[in-house]
């Protein structure tokens, strides 16, 4: 869902042709800009999930600057695509929204604001309601792989398979870290693909930092006859070497020096 914030400057929103090389280059630049603001935002707030937010910046950029049907000038447009995300993605989500023109970037740094964050079940409810009314929009849900530890998630996966919700796409940010350690040590998930396929889902595995892969997977998901889950293998903390692949950075905010070091590395 989109936040209701005061409108200021509206950024020009280009429509990307998914088959031109230049489009993907632009997406990469946008993702880097988002990463920088994410670092600034978390450092200023003093708390936040640094690693997963940096790792999923490419997914959010591909969604908002590429695949999504939306209009930043009309945040309550009836036919817009719906996006839901886990609460830990709040910084990267807000930054992407600001960069795509929903509100000014300067609002990001004016105190903390909690974005509406919902569980996977709410996303599925929204998609189910759309299916009942034969609406054409698509519902996306971005969430972290450690949510798969929860029982509620599997309840929902079962129900989506039952209703054959082909207007629903779940993007799993397979970062492989959580607060206490590496995912496969804390609570092993593999073989994930077989598990999801057994729940009657259409599974696509991609590299979560390759925009070409992400966009083509999102396009494929729109035309599937089953609910689609995109398992995006990401490197947590992508772009900043001292954060990459370290579970200690799961829920830690950078200090002033670390912020500066990260920003210079992202140049």
């Amino acid at each position, binding site marked *: 869902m989109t936040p209701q914030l005061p409108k200021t400057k509206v950024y020009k929103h280009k429509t990307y042709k998914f088959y031109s090389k230049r489009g993907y280059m632009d997406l990469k630049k946008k993702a880097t800009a988002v990463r920088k603001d994410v670092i600034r935002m978390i450092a200023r707030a003093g708390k936040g999930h640094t690693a997963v937010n940096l790792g999923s910046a490419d997914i959010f950029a591909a969604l908002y600057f590429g695949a999504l049907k939306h209009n930043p000038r009309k945040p309550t447009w009836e036919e817009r695509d719906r996006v839901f995300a886990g609460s830990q993605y709040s910084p990267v989500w807000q930054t992407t929204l600001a960069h795509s023109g929903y509100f000014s970037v300067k609002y990001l740094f004016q105190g903390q604001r909690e974005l509406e964050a*919902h*569980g996977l*079940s709410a996303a*599925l*409810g*929204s998609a*189910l*309601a759309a299916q009942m009314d034969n609406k054409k929009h698509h519902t996306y849900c971005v969430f972290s792989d450690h949510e798969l530890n929860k029982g*509620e998630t599997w309840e*929902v996966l079962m129900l989506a398979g039952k209703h054959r919700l082909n207007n629903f796409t779940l993007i799993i940010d397979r970062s492989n870290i959580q607060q206490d350690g590496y995912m496969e040590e804390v609570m092993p998930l593999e073989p994930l693909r077989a598990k999801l396929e057994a729940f009657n889902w259409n599974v696509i595995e991609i590299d979560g930092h390759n925009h070409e892969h992400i966009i083509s997977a999102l396009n494929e998901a729109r035309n599937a006859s089953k609910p689609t889950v995109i398992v995006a293998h990401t490197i947590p903390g992508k772009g900043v070497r001292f954060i990459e692949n370290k579970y200690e950075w799961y829920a830690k905010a950078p200090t002033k020096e670390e912020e500066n070091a990260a920003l210079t590395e992202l140049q």
Partner: protein
Amino acid sequence: MKTINDGYAEALAELAKQKEDIVVLSADSAEKTGIKQFAQKHPNRFVQCGKAKQSLIGIAAGMAMEGKIAFANACITENYDQLRMISRKKLNVKIVDADNSEEDVAIARTLPEMTIIIPADYHEAKKATIAATVMKGPVYLRLGKEKAAVTTEKTSFMIGRAEIMRAGKDCTIIACGTALYEALKTAEKLSQQEIECTVLDCHTIQPLDRHAVMSSARLTGCIVTAEEQRGLGPAIAELLSQYLPVPVRMSTADSIAITKAVKDAVLLKCENICPEIPEEHGKMLVTEMHPELYFKLHGGGAIKSIPGLKKALLEMSNETFSYHCNEHRNDFSNWVKEVFREPLLAKQIEKSKTPIGMAIAITRWLK
């Protein structure tokens, strides 16, 4: 005899014809709550989730975000986190619980935006379902298991307003759900022993009808609560300990227990063990009503309480005033009569034809 569930199911079947937005979710409890009929008639508006009670509430929340009125038939002892989301965002989800655990109302009371309704019998369940559908926002509807004797066939129903079922001067019994019948029966028995009891049907536990509870407590001087779960008693005690400390005794839905509690409370009152009732009549009137009971002004805006009415009358434009108060009707008087049940004040308001006259009448009454 028709059960409480029948009332809910029948009301739902009627409403489903009128409102296309209604969707029903079931946690393997269609049989128990009597919604099989709905499922057969409107299969495309019925979601069967199996025993998955956690995701059911989340899915109902998602549907409400898309503009649906979601009836979630599930117990709430498993899914507190999802309920928090509904309460915080004030989503239009109606949770219908027929499982009847002892703790459920106590759990629901911790959610500030949740309206909690416990119907007493078939008729009240029907009225409550209709009122909950019209109302916007989360509602928790607790359907009693037992076949309840009919007590509320002729009473009116408004969310957030307690019904006075019987008047007496010695003690107030506040009951809800299936305990109401027992409370009325006990009150009849006690009147033979020269203890006259007021009986309130407090079907809406949150937000509580503070006006009715406080004025009744002021008149009778002691309170007994009767319920089959845990929720009404604590709510009443919370309110009274702050503003009007009178003896309160909490009882179960059992007739013997109610009798004992009433005698206990009346004796306590006579011994004057509790401190004197403070003469703060004005304070209780400041308390606001449930948003459903607000007086909606013609030009926009709402009045929340009787002092609020006085203030609004003085600031009101002539146009608005003549819209609400003219030869054919007097909305202010009706509102005071219906919501606050203060017939004397309503009469005085009806007599005076100007806003200032009404304001003076209210000021006099407040003193």
